[in-house]
């Protein structure tokens, strides 16, 4: 099937070349990081994780969000999702590749990464995260590919794809739960030390993932002859609506517990994020932007007239994706480190080099996504055409 990817229009190739250029620029900067160390980033002794891990966390959510099309189709036989299930699976593949790349670029000694396998440490959450992320990636590649192949040959998929699909559902929940456990099991970090972290991660994932998928459906409709179907998009929008409301509700619960109980080691972080702490307030405008975007997005999705508006929907989805990205990426990671365990305030901002490497990882993901989506849409065009 891969041969489909090397036949494309001029704009297709322009897009590919653009992505390759961004990847090239990132690789060039990464050589600098590889030679000179993570000194080129804005990270510090106090804020020891930054932009890479923030984007990693967000993308684990996008990957897990793919399950929101898998569950209705495979568990509830919701036929309308038949056309887009493969898109959800391939989005998960691209997101997971980006996740793994973000982990690798964040390592101080990337050549030693296999030590995680050589010295398996069942006490470490990172060990389980590696297992579930790779497992979910493997499942989605195999299932997605086999399904598409079957569709192309107009035959039933091989019988063993079905159990793999069912297995991928707990894996999707698993990747984001374990990713939350990375943070919420640490005794000295008040912002993360909350049982609602994993549910909150899942809620924002089930909002951001499908919202991004809706945007991708619009793009597919614009650039290919394949139509994902308006009804499927409408159902996705309802899923986004519920999930973003759940996310906002969980956040509200967090805000209540933190401020009403008033325990300083928990309060300090949210105070820093929402109002500034001891005069440090770099993230305050970001956090309020995120909250306004997510809240407005939720309102736009609740009101049927606005949700059914074909022009407004992609904009609403864009708001939710950006809101969730700020909330879970920037806020979640920086917010957990500021103030430090000793209550010193060291703020964090990514450097230009850090941003270029980040963009290159995204470009790699989009390259994979473009190719996989091209395969999927072309096969569907062939079959339906």
């Amino acid at each position: 099937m891969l041969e489909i990817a090397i036949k494309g229009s001029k704009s297709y190739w322009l897009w590919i070349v653009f992505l390759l250029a961004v990847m090239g620029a990132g690789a060039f900067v990464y050589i600098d990081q590889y030679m000179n160390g993570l000194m080129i980033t804005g990270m510090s002794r106090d804020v020891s994780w930054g932009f890479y891990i923030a984007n990693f966390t967000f993308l684990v959510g996008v990957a897990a969000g793919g399950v929101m099309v898998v569950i209705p189709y495979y568990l509830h036989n919701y036929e309308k999702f038949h056309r887009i299930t493969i898109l959800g699976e391939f989005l998960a593949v691209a997101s997971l590749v980006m996740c793994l790349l973000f982990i690798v670029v964040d390592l101080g000694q990337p050549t030693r990464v296999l030590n995680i396998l050589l010295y398996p440490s069942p006490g470490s959450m990172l060990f389980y995260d590696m297992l579930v992320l790779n497992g979910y990636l493997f499942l989605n590649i195999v299932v997605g590919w086999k399904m598409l192949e079957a569709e192309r040959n107009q035959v039933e998929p091989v019988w063993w794809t079905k159990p793999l699909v069912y297995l991928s559902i707990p894996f999707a929940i698993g990747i984001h739960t374990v990713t939350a456990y990375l943070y919420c099991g640490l005794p000295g970090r008040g912002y993360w030390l909350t049982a609602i972290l994993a549910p909150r991660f899942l809620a924002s994932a089930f909002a951001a993932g499908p919202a991004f998928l809706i945007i991708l459906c619009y793009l597919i409709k614009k650039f290919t002859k394949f139509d994902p179907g308006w009804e499927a998009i409408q159902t996705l929008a309802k899923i986004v609506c519920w999930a973003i409301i759940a996310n906002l509700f969980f956040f509200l619960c967090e805000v209540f517990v933190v401020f009403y109980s008033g325990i300083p080691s928990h309060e300090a972080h949210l105070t820093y994020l929402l109002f500034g702490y001891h005069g440090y307030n770099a993230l305050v405008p970001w956090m309020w932007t995120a909250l306004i975007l997510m809240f407005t997005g939720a309102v736009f999705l609740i009101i049927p007239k606005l949700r059914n508006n074909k022009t407004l929907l992609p904009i609403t989805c864009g708001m939710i994706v950006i809101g969730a990205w700020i909330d879970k990426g920037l806020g979640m990671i920086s917010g957990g480190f500021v103030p430090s365990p000793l209550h010193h305030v060291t703020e964090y901002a990514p450097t230009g080099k850090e941003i270029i490497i980040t963009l290159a990882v995204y470009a790699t993901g989009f390259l994979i996504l473009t190719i996989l989506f091209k395969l999927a849409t072309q096969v569907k065009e062939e079959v339906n055409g």
Partner: protein
Amino acid sequence: MMKKSRRSFLKVAGIAAIGLGAAPAMNFASTNAAHPVKSKNQTALTAHRWGMVIDTNKVTEQVVEHVMEACHKAHNVPDFNHEVDEEKFPNTRPVNHKQELKWIWEEHFKYAFPDKEDEFLAEKFLDLPFLVTCNHCKNAPCVQACPTQATFKREDGIVLMDYHRCIGCRFCMAACPFGARSFNFRDPRPFIEEISPGFPTRTKGVVEKCNLCSERLAKGELPHCVEASEGAITVGDLEDPESEVRALLNENYTIRRKQSLGTEPSVYYVM
């Protein structure tokens, strides 16, 4: 050509013959010892669980300075204020002081004990320097977090690091509630004034922290901080009721950092 290869063949054959002849003798020697014994330095200082008691009454600015210098020099901890030797390390980029490294350092009370912050705290504590370092916790979150066991706990309670196994994921830094860990964001060597041969320098991309001078305990010597502290720091066996640290804990009111988290720090502060 021919001659040469024949000669080298004979050489190899000869060595092999020696080996064959030696093998039985070697076997004999090894069967003589029933169990292979790891030799341990008889003069090494040992404990069931190492602990540290810091007498805050004896910690002055001068003591702090001496302790930090002794520790950091002996362990080749880089000093970002050190002027780089341009000849040896050309084109060294400017430093970011937020990326500094430290094993033991000074904090004010409210930072060393953020959960005990008190607006009516006795004035004498306000500006008192508190020495903080790795607590070698009994339930160390960093050991639990490490995905490669590069950070591990020794039987005697010391939390140690294998700098050659560390992948630099910095999970341990997120896990530590005491900010005791530092990451080598860059090659530390240009910022070491004089490399002390007693301890390895580190490479970029690995985490490091206080090791309670395990390399000195193994030789029967007390940690550098203890020696430089003019009696302010004592180390010893927490589980031995006869030890000096236990005597100090018996006689004085002591506190530990963030006790409520349950990590069981092994560093005590005499108030």
